[in-house]
Structures are given as structure tokens and as C-alpha cells.
């Protein structure tokens, strides 16, 4: 029980630290919120005064910060400076499409990685697969997306180009995002498998007369999974970062484009909401990863 409370408390501290760090970073960035709202339009002291009055920007930064924290604690994320809508609407409406994309891409990436790592054990196959993985990891997702679109949407017409409209529209963006993920995970898994198969327990298992594939799946894979699970946090970062580009290429709604717009225009309330949300997901994912270790590795359950 104590462990759970400790976990929750440390989670809250992480969230607060993330929100504060984002706040300070935006404060330190050049320009002011008023500059953002004025944009490249007409700019007079009168216009500026009205904007300052409307958003209460004449209060000291520390007061704005504390009042922000207070409102967040009550579940009020504020209003977007730029989009003039409540932040909860802006972010809430975009959460679903991004979640669908991220889950589909993560699932696809993990399945691809497992299949590739387990099937390409022969020297020639691993050479081919390994080069393909390197190419995928080093190719910008923007290019992967455009090439997939040109072939499967513009030429063959199998999938629609844009939007969040059912499974067909999800295939290409999810694949674009999954390929680099699969590239990295396969490399990590293969490396883990190689090391596990050199261990004495693999020899023991073989001497019991177990077939090579059974040794691979039942014994080596468990060992290889541990480093892969440690990458869960990294995986989330790749998915969110990739979503920014994928969503704009595929004309998909989602958090990625909202984040990009909010950061470039210093839309503080939206940036903070996205940061807090991402931090929450990080905390949850890392907790899940810790639990997964227990499932995968029986040795950890005893301690």
C-alpha cells in the first residue's frame, strides 16, 4: 500500500515539475504573449493595451503562474490565446485521433519487430533485415509518409489521403509511424536473442531435446524482452514527436498539430496542458513497464 501511495505522490511531483519547467521555458523564450496575439497584423499601443487587459497579462509572472496552478488543481485548464476556445475542448477533441494513431502504430511496430526478430535468424536474412531496419530508422518519417501516400493512395487508390475516418484512413499514417519504431525494436530484440542463446540455460534447454524454435520463443525471447520494455518511454516520445509530422502530412486531426501550433505561437495554456498530459502518460507508461518486468522475469517477483 505504501508503495502505491509513494508511486502516486512521485507521479504528482513529476507532473508539477513538468508544468513548471514548461512554464519557465516559455517565459524565457524571446517575445511576449502580446506579440503572439498581435501576429503580423496591425500593432499599436491601443491594440496592445486591450489585449493585455483582456488576458490579465499585466499581472506579475509569479501571480499568473500561481493562479494557473490553482485553476488546474480545480480542473480548469484555461482558454487558448490563439484559438479562443477552452483548452479542455481543444485538447479533448484531438486526444482520440492521436490515441488511435499511437496505439495502432505501437501495436503494428511491436508485432513487426517480434516477427522480424524471430524469423530472420539465418545470416543472409538478418543481413537484409538489418539493413532495411537501419534505412527505416534513418529516414525522416515525412519522407516515408509521402512515399507511402504516392504509392498506395495517389497511384493505387487503396487508402484515402487524409482525415480520421475509419480503419482505411488509419493504415498509412500508422504504418509510417510504426516502421521506424519496428526498426529500433527489432535491433534491440535481435541483440537480446543473440545474447540469450549464448547463455548456459539455452544449452541446457537444447540438451533436453527442445527444438530450436521452442528455445527461441519460450526461453530466449523472455530475456530479450527486458531491454525492449525499458524502451516504453522512448517509444511514447517517438510516437508523440512523429505525430506532429504525420498528422500534418496526412491532414489528420490530433494533438501533434495542436502542439506544433501552440508552441510556435506561445499559446501558453495549450502548451501547458499538452505537457501535463504527456507527463501523465509517461508516468503511467513507466508504471506499466515496471509491472511488466514482474510478469516477464520471475526472479524480480521474489524481491
Amino acid at each position: 500500500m505504501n508503495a502505491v501511495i509513494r508511486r502516486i505522490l512521485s507521479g504528482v511531483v513529476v507532473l508539477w515539475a513538468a508544468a513548471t519547467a514548461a512554464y519557465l521555458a516559455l517565459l524565457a523564450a524571446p517575445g511576449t504573449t502580446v506579440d503572439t496575439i498581435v501576429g503580423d497584423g496591425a500593432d499599436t499601443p491601443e491594440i496592445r493595451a486591450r489585449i493585455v487587459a483582456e488576458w490579465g497579462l499585466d499581472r506579475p509572472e509569479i501571480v499568473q503562474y500561481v493562479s494557473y496552478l490553482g485553476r488546474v488543481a480545480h480542473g480548469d485548464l484555461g482558454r487558448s490565446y490563439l484559438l479562443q476556445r477552452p483548452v479542455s475542448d481543444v485538447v479533448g477533441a484531438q486526444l482520440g485521433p492521436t490515441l488511435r494513431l499511437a496505439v495502432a502504430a505501437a501495436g503494428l511496430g511491436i508485432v513487426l519487430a517480434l516477427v522480424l526478430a524471430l524469423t530472420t535468424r539465418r545470416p543472409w536474412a538478418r543481413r537484409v533485415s538489418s539493413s532495411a531496419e537501419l534505412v527505416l530508422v534513418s529516414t525522416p518519417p515525412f519522407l516515408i509518409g509521402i512515399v507511402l501516400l504516392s504509392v498506395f493512395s495517389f497511384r493505387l487508390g487503396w487508402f484515402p489521403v487524409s482525415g480520421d475516418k475509419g480503419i482505411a484512413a488509419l493504415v498509412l499514417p500508422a504504418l509510417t509511424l510504426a516502421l521506424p519504431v519496428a526498426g529500433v525494436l527489432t535491433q534491440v530484440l535481435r541483440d537480446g536473442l543473440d545474447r540469450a542463446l549464448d547463455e548456459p540455460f539455452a544449452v541446457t534447454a537444447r540438451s533436453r531435446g527442445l527444438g530450436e524454435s521452442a528455445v527461441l520463443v519460450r526461453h530466449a525471447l523472455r530475456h530479450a524482452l527486458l531491454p525492449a520494455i525499458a524502451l516504453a518511454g522512448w517509444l511514447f516520445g517517438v510516437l508523440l514527436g512523429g505525430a506532429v509530422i504525420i498528422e500534418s502530412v496526412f491532414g489528420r486531426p490530433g494533438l501533434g498539430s495542436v502542439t506544433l501550433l501552440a508552441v510556435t505561437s506561445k499559446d501558453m495554456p495549450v502548451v501547458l496542458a499538452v505537457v501535463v498530459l504527456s507527463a501523465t502518460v509517461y508516468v503511467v507508461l513507466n508504471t506499466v513497464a515496471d509491472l511488466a518486468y514482474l510478469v516477464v522475469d520471475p526472479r524480480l517477483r521474489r524481491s
Partner: protein
Amino acid sequence: MRRIATALAALALTLAAACDAGAGQTTADAGQPVDGGALTWGIETEPITFNPHLYAQAKARLLVWNAYEALLTHDDQGGYRPWLATGFEAAADGKAYTVTLRTGVTFSDGTPFDAAAVKANIDQLRSPGYAPQVAAVQLRNLKDAEVKDSTTVIFHLTRPDVLFLDFLSSPQGAVVSPKSLKEAKDLKAGGPELKGTGPFVLDRYVPGQEVHFARNPSYRGERPARLDEVTYRFLKESSVRVGALTSGQVQVIEGVPATDQALITSNPELTFRKGLNSGSAYSYYFNIAHAPFDDIRVRQAFREAVDVPTVLDAVYRGTATRAWSVVSPASPLYDKSLENTYSGDAAKANSLLDAAGWATRDAEGFRTRNGKRLTVRLVQSAPFVRDRREILAQTVQAAVKQSAGIDLRVSVVDQGTATKALADGEYEVFDNSRADTDAGAALDLLLHSGAAINRTGFNDAGLDGLLAEGVATSDAARRRATYAKIQQKVITEQALILPLYAPADQIAASRSVGGLGFEPTAGVPAGAAGVWLAK
């Protein structure tokens, strides 16, 4: 990295299109107008707001007139004609406009359109915290709006201002149902809650994806909808827009960059149109507040050092229209006599710089004076860079270095850094184009002493007088003469500005779509009223 990616993508598309062109057969044109059908239109920009009063993006203008209408509209001669009005009349002293309104018009929520509704919109625009830029610029000379009777409104001005008619024809001047202005939950974001009188009704907005309009069944005006519905998809990447069009997933797109235009024009299934925007041309403004551009010879030398057609061809492959004046050649106020009067003479540039004291060169070949290099800085704000203007700047940079030894430093920075550089005067070149329908409105902001975006630091009572004269009269010939004087003063006499090109919009469409075009005067793509889809 991204540039390479774009180039590869363009290559892939070229190959795809080349195959298509071989296999495709020419279909008939759109033929006679027909009613019905659903159109999908790929657009570049997702509007920040759908509230016409807060409109600030020229790229979003094509959406505004689907759901909303204004009292007046521009004709193609630089004048105005009634739209929601039946007529308008200026007082003899120019300090009042009487506008009579159409009867029997209702907003799509059933609220009747009348003089009280017009006044409610003006009151809303002037309420604190709602539309500060409209209140401070377009309505600065408005005293009040008087409801004379239910179909007559009199606008009283504090001084003559013809640009007030431009306001009445602008998206900010669109008339919104006063009931929805009161009741809308997210008033400043606009959207389905905000009702207008237009031929379509905005009924669905999916952020990041699309906005949907349905035909307004109660519309009785002069620009009825032919389509049953039209969906605008937000496709930010130009190669994706072009691919979506060539594969038939959308029927119309706007925003076709130079690199993709050959793909469209070589495809017999597609049509391509280009329209020049009015307002101000994309130009470099010289900051004369400090050296080196405080010396007119250096300003003239910079202009002579750039061979504009060569630079434009290198970047836009012959698709750009060269500008000779700060006013767009599409504007009725454009002074044609400025054409071929300056620029592109490297020998002249060098002799001007020699005379101005920048006669020595340093090890890298740049000119120097008293040991100081001839360096000028151009600061571009990344969120507002479009039309490959950062590439254009690099090309100009190479041109002025090669022909005259001028060191142009280009930096593309975030908006905060750019605003700070401008506020501190840490720049010598400022780049800008404005899409105002009346070029006079753009010049007021750019050239008047101490105006909101006067970045040249040129303050001149004579010029201010001419600018005031330009908005005080509605006589077209007199306005043209006044603005010709203004253009000659800033371009020829003072060499304050290097005009580069006239911003343009492009529409590419399937041949089955008819009735597409550009809005008169504004030059941006027109809305969906009058557009039809052949069966």
C-alpha cells in the same frame, strides 16, 4: 533534410503523373451550370477562427463568404456595389454614409436581418476585448451607427474616410446574427454556432481535418449555392494536396507552389488558374534610421544590384509576376509608369557605392568603409514565411554579393525574436506583403509616419498629407492620381522600397468543376457560391 524529402516527393509525384497522363483520356468540360452534388476542396490553411469579425488570414477568406455576407462588395473596377444593401450614398462632406438594406432577408437561425442587426454588429466590434485590431484600424474614424428606420443605417464618421466602404465590404464587416453573437459559447472561435445570411451554412467543423458547409435552403440572395454540400479538407503539404487532386480524392485545391504547377498544367483532366492578389506587393523595405541605408545612394545601389527577373526565375521557375511598385499590379491604384525605371544595373550599383564611400573591399570580396563591412540584415519570422520567401532571400543574398559586394545577412527566427529585432531597430531590411483589398489601407499601415508597420523610419509630412488625401475622396480618378504621387515618392524619389513580386493564389481543379474563380479586387479564390459539379 526536409527540402530533400520534398524534392524526392515531387519526383515521385512527377513519375506518377507522367504515367497517368499517358493512360488518361480527356473528359468534357463542366458544361452548363447544374444544381446538386457534393464537392471536396483541399485547402492549405486551417483558419484560426471562423468568426468573420476576427478574420486575419487572407488564406481563410474563401471560407468566409460561404456562410456570411457583407453590406457591400467590391466590383472589378475598384469600386463598390451593394450586397446585403440595396444602395449607399455618401454625404456631401464625406463624413456620413447612408446605407439602405434589403428586405426579407433572414439569418440562418431565423433572426430577421435589419438595421438593428447591423448596428448590433458594429456595437459588438467596438466592445472591449472583442476585436481590438478592427476597432483601432478599420473603425478608427467611425463616430456611430444610427438606425434611421428598419431598412436604413447612417454611419457617421469623425472625418472623411473612403476606406470605411472597404470595411463594409470586408470579412470583418460581415453581418452576423445578433442572436448568435449573444448566445454563442465560443464567440471568438466562431463555427457552427455563429449564423450568417450566406448561401451555405457552416454545420460541421472537425479541427485538424475539415469544415463542412450545407446549402442554405432559405437563401434568397443574388449568389445562391448550386452544390448541396461542400467539404474543405485541411491539407497543409502542397505535394499531398496535388496528389489528392490527381488521384481524384478531392476535386479542387488551392495553393499550388511553382514546383508543382507543371504537374497540373500537363494533365488534361485538370484545370489551372492563377489570380494576383491586390494590396501591397511583396517588397523589401529599407530601414533609413541608421547606416548604411540612411544614404539614398546605398538604397539605390541595393536595388540596382538585384536583377529581379533572374532572381524570381531561379526560385519560382517563371511562375511569379514581377512587381514594380509597392502597390500590387492587380490593384486599380497601381502606377504603371514606374515599370522599367530602375533596377538590375550592376555597373550603376557599383559606381553608386563607390561614390557613397564604400569603395574598398575586404578579403571575402565584400565592400567596406573605414574598415567596416557593408552588412545589412533581414530578419524573417518563421511562422509567417510562405511562398519560399526564405529561399528568395538567399537568392537575393547571392545576387547582391556577386554584383555589388553587399553582405545581406538573412535570419529566419521565431516570432518573438523577430518582434524584438524590429522593436530594437536591429535590422536594415524588412520584408512584407499585405492582402488588403484596398491598397490604400496597406499603404496607410506601411508608409504613414509612425504607422503600425512603418519599418522604414521614413517620416514625411508631405507623404502623410498625400495618404490622408487618398482616403478622403471617393473619386476614382483623383484617388489614382494621389496614389501615383505616393508611389513615385517612395519608389523613385526616395528609393525606400525594392518591390519583388505580386503575391498570387492558384486554383487547380478537375474539369468536372465549373464556376471557379477569384474574388474581384481581392484576387483570392472565391467561395463556393456559383460553383457546380458536372453530373
